[in-house]
């Protein structure tokens, strides 16, 4: 029996196969098929030469939901809102995105204002009914929507987090009249207060749902035709997975599918290799993602966005920047040199892809300097054209009076500064010293730039994991089932009893148990964690405070809050403390693939040596030995300069670094 992880990116579809009996991992890349991602996946399975019927687990990371939202080609939908509040999604929070620009363009709401329909109903802040739901009006609206052929309906009523009756009743009426449409309501997606963020999350869910359902339906059909009998699991933004059928209902949970999987893999590998405190740097073609893990734990956030729209679901705290392999280097007016945010994307891609790219990119700079070998096709597919890279880099250099080599090094230096800047955002800016962490690069470009980024930040250790080019796909096989549930109910700690707290959390836990049980996780494979969103009365933001479910007294909850507050702001305040929201994270534990332990047989420096190539480091060209990672000897440090090549990635070891292979299959790089 075998487990398969499939992560679909913009350029490549990455597959990782774990053969349970042989304890063996196999990875491949195949070109993505953006029109229908299922085509690329089936091609990949074919290339692996396995029967779909032998697949016991199938875990999938997909960008369909995110792309649908970003490309604005989602469903024909309407939003039903409380009478008087049709503009919540139209104006947002009224803040300015473009500073110092008298021509800031107007916000483009997800759907036109005319498709936000006001419904007669109103709840008070405590969930009591001020004005009952006008069911006759809902019936009339449903009739009209059915005639208009609406594909999805999002129901967004004020204070629905406190009482979901009106939303649920409205959904029933709409669903009865429009049985083929997706009907989703805010209390189901995110029963948390602050209407703009909740409505935005709910509307996005409805917007992407029909396409996601059609994609996952097609994929399941194709896999089933091919003989697969196991169920399909989809990676979600919180670092867990959910059955595909559940994600079809709540696709908004999968917005950060791929990056989350990489963090899960990093946590697992980092612990195994003895480096549990890590900063990950996933560098791809169009964007790079960084994440900080302390003792194997990653932070969570509810501050996510897709494009301009808030997505308030709980997700791994990953920081993304546009600097990546495809970032274009260009000169602005006044001679400002910039690298990104414009990107050559996957198409046409960098000039060296030979698909019509005419501007210098980070990847082209790597090719010019010899750091990215042209001997192997990229991902086994794309043959790199060095002359094309040289031509575009030379042309840019001429404008700045720089040689092609100096220009290429300059592009990389600026890219390094912005990657290091992204890491500063999640470390230095939060009062954390990155030098206490090891850097874990992955993605196609991560290991090419890791040493430069580490030098910039003063980090001394780099851990290049096995299969860096397919790392997110590996994470898919490691992720547990996970569901995060939330409910807002605001009260001060002085007026709340400990049994109020327990009851609220127990209710959430029961909902989680239903989902776990539906997904086939018995009580012995379940785990959960409780937390409260808390603040001082008068503040308008909350801190997440972890508590144990059977906490005995309110005072210990207050103390836990004061501890978190002090850690963040350096002291406490004399004010009432409020509990705002209750949260449960529930896991269904799954078996992890065993990583093959490396034995020394057939490995040696000589066997691993591939060739010697001229590569530029710090302005000088060095004859640099190139090694094949698969044949490197164990624990024998190789001094830079060197390059370690493998399928899907290359690791650059500059002159003042050394590298060795450890028994978990990680490359450990240290500064001399």
């Amino acid at each position, binding site marked *: 029996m075998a487990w398969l992880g499939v992560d679909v990116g913009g350029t490549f579809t990455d597959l990782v196969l774990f053969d349970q009996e042989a304890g063996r991992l196999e990875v491949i890349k195949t070109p993505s098929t953006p029109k229908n991602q299922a085509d690329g996946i089936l091609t990949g399975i074919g290339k692996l030469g396995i029967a779909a019927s032998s697949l016991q687990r199938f875990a999938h990371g997909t960008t369909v939901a995110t792309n649908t939202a970003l490309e604005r080609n989602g469903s024909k939908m309407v939003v039903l809102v409380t009478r008087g509040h049709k503009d919540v999604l139209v104006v947002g929070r009224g803040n*300015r995105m473009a500073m110092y620009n008298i021509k800031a363009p107007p916000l483009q709401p997800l759907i036109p204002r005319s498709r936000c329909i006001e419904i007669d109903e109103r709840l008070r802040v405590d969930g009591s009914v001020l004005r009952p739901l006008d069911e006759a009006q809902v019936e009339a609206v449903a009739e009209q929507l059915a005639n208009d052929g609406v594909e999805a309906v999002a129901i967004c009523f004020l204070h629905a987090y406190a009482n979901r009756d009106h939303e649920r009743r409205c959904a029933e009426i709409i669903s009865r009249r429009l049985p083929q449409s997706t009907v989703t309501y805010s209390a189901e997606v995110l029963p948390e207060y602050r209407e703009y963020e909740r409505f935005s999350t709910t509307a996005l869910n409805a917007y992407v749902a029909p396409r996601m359902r059609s994609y996952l339906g097609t994929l399941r059909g194709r896999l089933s035709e091919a003989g697969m009998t196991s169920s399909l699991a989809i990676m979600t933004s919180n670092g867990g997975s959910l059955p595909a059928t559940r994600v079809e209902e709540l696709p908004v949970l999968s917005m950060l599918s791929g990056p989350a999987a990489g963090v899960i893999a990093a946590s697992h590998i980092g612990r195994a290799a003895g480096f549990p405190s890590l900063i990950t740097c996933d560098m791809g073609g169009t964007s790079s993602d960084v994440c900080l893990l302390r003792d194997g734990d990653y932070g969570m956030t509810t501050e996510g966005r897709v494009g301009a729209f808030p997505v308030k679901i709980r997700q791994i705290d990953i920081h993304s920047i546009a600097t990546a392999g495809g970032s274009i280097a260009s000169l602005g*007016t006044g001679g*400002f040199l910039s690298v990104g945010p414009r990107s050559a994307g996957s198409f046409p891609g960098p000039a060296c892809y030979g698909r019509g790219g005419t501007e210098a990119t980070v990847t082209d700079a790597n090719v010019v300097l010899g750091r990215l070998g042209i001997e192997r096709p990229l991902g086994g597919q794309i043959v790199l054209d060095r002359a094309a890279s040289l031509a575009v880099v030379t042309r840019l250099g001429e404008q*700045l009076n720089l040689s092609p080599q100096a220009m290429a090094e300059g592009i990389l230096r600026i890219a390094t500064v912005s990657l290091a800047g992204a890491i500063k955002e999640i470390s230095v800016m*939060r009062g954390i010293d990155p030098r206490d962490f090891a850097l874990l690069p992955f993605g196609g470009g991560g290991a090419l730039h890791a040493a430069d980024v580490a030098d910039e930040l003063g980090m001394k250790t780099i851990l290049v994991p096995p299969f860096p080019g397919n790392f997110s796909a590996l994470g898919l096989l490691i992720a547990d089932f996970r569901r995060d549930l939330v409910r807002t109910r605001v009260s001060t700690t002085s007026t709340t009893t400990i049994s109020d707290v327990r009851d609220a959390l127990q209710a959430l836990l029961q909902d989680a148990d239903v989902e776990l049980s539906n997904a086939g996780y018995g009580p012995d494979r379940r785990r959960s964690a409780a937390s409260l969103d808390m603040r001082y009365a008068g503040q308008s933001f909350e801190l997440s405070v972890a508590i144990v479910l059977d906490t005995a007294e309110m005072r210990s909850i207050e103390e836990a809050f004061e501890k978190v507050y002090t850690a963040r702001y350096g002291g406490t305040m004399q004010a009432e403390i409020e509990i705002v929201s209750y949260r449960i994270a529930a896991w269904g534990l799954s078996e992890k693939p065993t990583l093959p332990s490396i034995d020394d047989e057939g490995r040696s420096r000589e066997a691993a040596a591939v060739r010697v190539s001229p590569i530029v480091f710090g302005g000088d060209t060095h004859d640099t030995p190139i090694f094949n990672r698969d044949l490197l000897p164990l624990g024998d440090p190789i001094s830079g300069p060197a390059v370690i090549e493998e399928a899907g990635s290359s690791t650059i070891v500059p002159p003042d670094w050394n590298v060795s292979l450890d028994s978990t299959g990680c490359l450990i790089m240290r500064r001399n």
Partner: protein
Amino acid sequence: MAIDPITLEVLTQALISTVREMRATVCRTASSVAIYDAKDFSCGLFAPDSQVVAQSEDIGSHVVPLPWSVRTAMEKLGATLQPGDVILANDPYTGGTHLNDVTVIYPVFQGDKLIFFPAVRAHWADVGGMVPGSMSGKATEIYQEGIRIPPIKIIEGGRVNEAAQELLLANMRVPEERLGDLNASFAACRVAEKRIHEICARYGIDQLLEAVRLDLDRAEARMRACISALPDGTFFYEDYLETFMGGKFEPLLMQLALTIDGDRMIADFTGTAPQVPFPVNSTASVSAASVFITVKSVFDPQAPLNQGSFRPIEVIAPPGTIVNVQRPAPAGSHGEIRKRVIATMVGALSQVVPDRVAGDTCRTSFHNLLGGLDTRTGREWVHYEWSAGGNGGFAENDGPSAMAPIDWGDLVTVQSSEVLELRMPLLVETSRLATDSGGAGRNRGGLSMQRTLRVLAPDTRYSLLSDGAIVPAFGVLGGLAGFPVGSWIDREGEVENFDTPGKVAGHPVELGAAVVIRSAGGGGYGDPTERDPARVAEDVREGYVSNAAAHQLYGVVLDKAGEPDAEATAALRKRLKESRFKLVAVDDASSFEAGSVSRRRIARINPADAIEARLNEDDVIEMDARKAAPLRAWLRIDPKVVRGTLPIDAHGLIILKSRLGDELELRAVLTSVHPRAVLATAAE
């Protein structure tokens, strides 16, 4: 010394990153909610000659005036500055904004050479004065607005000046919280000092200073290139702030002469109204910064902000006027002066580069306060609301609706109804964009936000500190005005208006009544009868424009399906254009009339013309040649004026890009929009 272009970019980014780290430090360590939550603070790095070297996503209204504080501090204390000294200041009269903005200036030395000043300006929740929070609409002298701190060494040779610190904190409310804010500013500056030393160690002080010099120089070169491309000449514009002297309306004139001379620009506010004993005045630094914010936002939005961009610009703000307040007049409300300086700059620039400006923005900071003592709960409550209005339309697009204007940065302006109802005895009955509130134009102005807040507690009072309730945002190139600010009390559909629009102090609102507040609309861009009829139809479908306005202002006839009727539209548009009321410009020595404090422009016309144009004495009108921004005036009916003529002075003609003998259009400006009419439209 030479520096390669790559190192230059790396060092530029390193300095910006240093400022970002200062910001993060303030957020992490400040005590005031207004600082760490509302982000009402700014950080910057300054060179010894007081120029901004680097900043990040800071509020323009804060950071751009900061160099004045640094400069006056240097003039006073520069000669004796030593390592370990730190300067504190908040004095508006010596480079500050208002007293609540407290600035820490931190000299960084390399050896014994002064190389940089990191500085933090943060809004302290209270600096003493007559009311909690220190800002009062009733202040007549600065002493009522809090304690003044001229530039002093709060830390000298590494030792805190305990006596000064104690004296200051003793004059503020919640002193322990203020001390926390002060320490947060120190912490941010220390982080910057550490990073600057690291950068020096790695790249060398000479290379760093050279990078700074080049950054400033190339920003200057960009701006000089922009200005050089403009035609030379002096351009004028004028606008008003609204006051009520003894209950009687009196507009305060702001007058601008903008000169473009080669690669230089001079903004001269001579002629502006004298300062008044109300918080309507502001400081020279705020006025100059507002000029800079406009120039930056119009000509160079892309580049990172530094002082180089502003070197080619000179600002003249005569002392003792509302744009350069002197002791002892209050300086508490800088937001209104800022917005009006921006408006006059946009008005003047519309004559030079109409394709690069936008219609006027939402006119005011629109401070609404609702609150009282809820006798049922014994709890005191205050709801503070500052809804943004519409921004102006521009050549490429409609103006954004209900969005923070350029001087506000990333400030959130729409508060969550759910949060509000949790905290306050209020029910947000409606929160919608107000149909037709955006100025009509080929590209429409943004719409205003209209909110109905029903009061659920007895003995509530309502206050409004606003402007733009009488003189609304202007359009450009024939675009029309947006709606003025509005507020009224609604009792089951019965409306009570306020006697002094825009200025309301503690008006009682009984349980069950509703306060309706509407921010201002943005000005339109271009002739509305040239807007694509399909876009007008879409605006009607989306509820941004009413059917009546589509007909009357845009000249678009819609059929039953809501689609434009091409033939009927063409005919209507022709009729609308032909029926515009025009008079011939004739020479007038002065078109101004003196009030008790200020002057205002008047338009004198013959009584028969007034009847034909359906205009009344004292109406606010616009004169327009549709070549730039229109010119506002108050109507005077005068039988001595020859029928068919409009006397106008030379400045007025320059503003309208017209000559004597030209036809000038005259139209009324909506100075109030009947609330019930708006409610009826919004409720449909």
